[in-house]
């Protein structure tokens, strides 16, 4: 899993099997969490990547969890709110880089 396709096509229609980083997902994108990594190259977090990974896992961002982007902030579409299995979680896009989502077929 080293090549992560960016969302295909200008029309934004995702096909089944498309994998996006959660930080790049848009409103309405739904799918299953494929992987939660500890490799973020963004230095924007005040904590290490391992720590960020553990925090994400603790909130329920685990492999296999159902996820859907349900809200986006007004400025730069950030932060986002996701439906994660049966709860709602808000997070910033830059903290969502390491969450890989396998999108459903539309």
């Amino acid at each position, binding site marked *: 899993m080293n090549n992560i396709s960016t969302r295909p096509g200008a029309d934004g229609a995702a096909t089944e099997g498309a994998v996006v980083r959660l930080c790049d997902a848009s409103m309405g994108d739904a799918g299953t969490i494929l992987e939660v990594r*500890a490799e973020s190259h963004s*230095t*924007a*977090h*005040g*904590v290490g990547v*391992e720590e*960020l*990974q*553990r*925090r*994400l*896992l*603790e*909130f*329920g961002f*685990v*492999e296999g969890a159902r996820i859907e982007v*349900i*809200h*986006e*902030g*007004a*400025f*730069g*579409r*950030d*932060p986002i*709110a996701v439906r994660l*299995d*049966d*709860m*709602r*979680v*808000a*997070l*910033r896009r830059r*903290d969502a880089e390491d969450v890989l989502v396998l999108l459903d077929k539309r």
Partner: protein
Amino acid sequence: MNQTLSPARVALVGNPNSGKTALFNALTGARQKVANYAGVTVERKEGVVTSPAGRQLMVLDLPGTYSLRARSPDEAVTRDAVLGRLAGEVPPEIVICVADATNLRLVLRLAMELKQVGRPMVLALNMYDIAQRQGLRIDLEGLSREIGAPIVTTVATRKRGIEDLLAQVDALVEAGHLAGENVWREPNAAEIRQAHAEAQRIVRTYVRPPEHPDTWTGRIDSVLLHPVAGLAILFGLLFLMFQAVFTWAGPAMDAIEALFGWLGAAVAQYIPNELLQSLVADGLIAGVGSVLVFLPQILILFFFIILLEDLGYMARAAFLMDKIMGGAGLHGRAFIPLLSSFACAIPGIMSTRVIDSKPDRITTILVAPLMTCSARIPVYTLIIGAFIPNTQVWGLFSLQGLVMFGLYATGIVSALVVSFITRRIFWRSTVEPFLMELPTYKLPEPKSVLRNLLVRAQIFINRAGRIILPMMILIWVLSTFPYPPEGAAGPAIDYSFAGIIGNFIQPLLAPIGFNWQMSIALIPGMAAREVAVATLGTVYAVGDAENNIGALATTLSQHWSVATGLSFLTWYIFAPQCAPTLGVVKRETNSWVWPTVMFVYMVALAYIASFIVYRTAVALGGG
């Protein structure tokens, strides 16, 4: 009651918003704030309850957490209390794990961690009313067997299931389960994944999904979290709040004012001694009255805050504000501390403990006093009443309300600017991750809203009694003695200690248009901001005793120029006129550096801003 039963300690542990505080209140009857935002319980709260068997139980309400692997000072308290690592604290014999029955997955992982600690545990499935309404089916026996702990269903807000819960605690104590071996250690990523899978399996096996899942939260959020409508509603709400503070409170304030006027006159009749009469009527009754008159406004402000917290709106507000605050270098979690600071900076600063990283936390602490606290309301209302005409703008809003809104807005904007600069000066480092659960909306329980409001009223009245009353006596003494010499020309107060001190520091403040009455009001005003109003009331009442003027506002509009009035308002936006706040900053940061930084930057801001406002107003003809 059986006297031979030994007391036991019980700790409430659970995710944020699971109802720990509500359960704590139901158990102990203690009055405490109940809110619907992740992490509002910061302080350690303890209460006592007698179990059905007659045993004394000490109940401890701990801050909400998702894991014993603590990240913030707040969560560290929970971990250390459970592990018995807190200095001077006896570890609890029994742990009550509080779960939101409608959201079990995350709490089950926490329950597994708690089991590793080895203390006997009861699982309280709270919010069972909501679970039942949704038609959620839980196999209680199976679940209990699986996690190896007895289960009790509760509805904390209606005090249902409390007896059962206490009986289970009794049974556990009686069974003499000694704490087992503590095998807990910080889980790594693989272990967290494994625990999640286990929790998931348990939920699948023993919980049947709800027949009527909550659909309201999604529908409400589609409006309240809408990028445009949501922000508009948030600002609309804040605006409504401040308009309400001004318009709704009017009649009640008039009534309180009249009451104290009548009281002063009535009491004065029965005091023959002129000096004593002046002390009681001008010093005590007028002084306390001029502060208590703001009780209605403070209650209206808190009414909104409590309602929004219980509703579950605060987490949404934090979501909407995150980008704006993030741009200023503030953490999303700073929203609640800053919002509490609108009531008072002290609880606001104390609740910054929910912020994990030190730079984030100290930045929030430094700007918290710029939020317009309720103690400024008396000062603002007085000056606005005196200098801003009570007219309508666009036939809709009162001009006075608009100015008030402007003062609040100035406080907020300057907080953002100061935070931005602070981060540039002290920490160029980066901000913590922002992860926050958005709880489901709940209808606030009228009784609990009312109870919280009463607590607020009590705190304010206590403050008026304990800080302001002695201060008023001191001010009265200072402004009455010594008497003026025989045949003196000016008013008596010119010759008093108050006059002497005021005239001494006045030259420093002259460039910003302050007279000596204002200068002296600032000194006792350090005890609490609203004391300045009472001081002005006393100083002018004593000085003008013979014609016994009605409203202080009228007096001020006669004695001060508009420029002076505006300058005083500006001063109060920025000045660190609150010694208790500085004391709390010292305690929370454990250093004198930060209170000093705060004091210096706020005085500088206040002086510069007042200078600009005064000079501009004078130039425009307001001198």
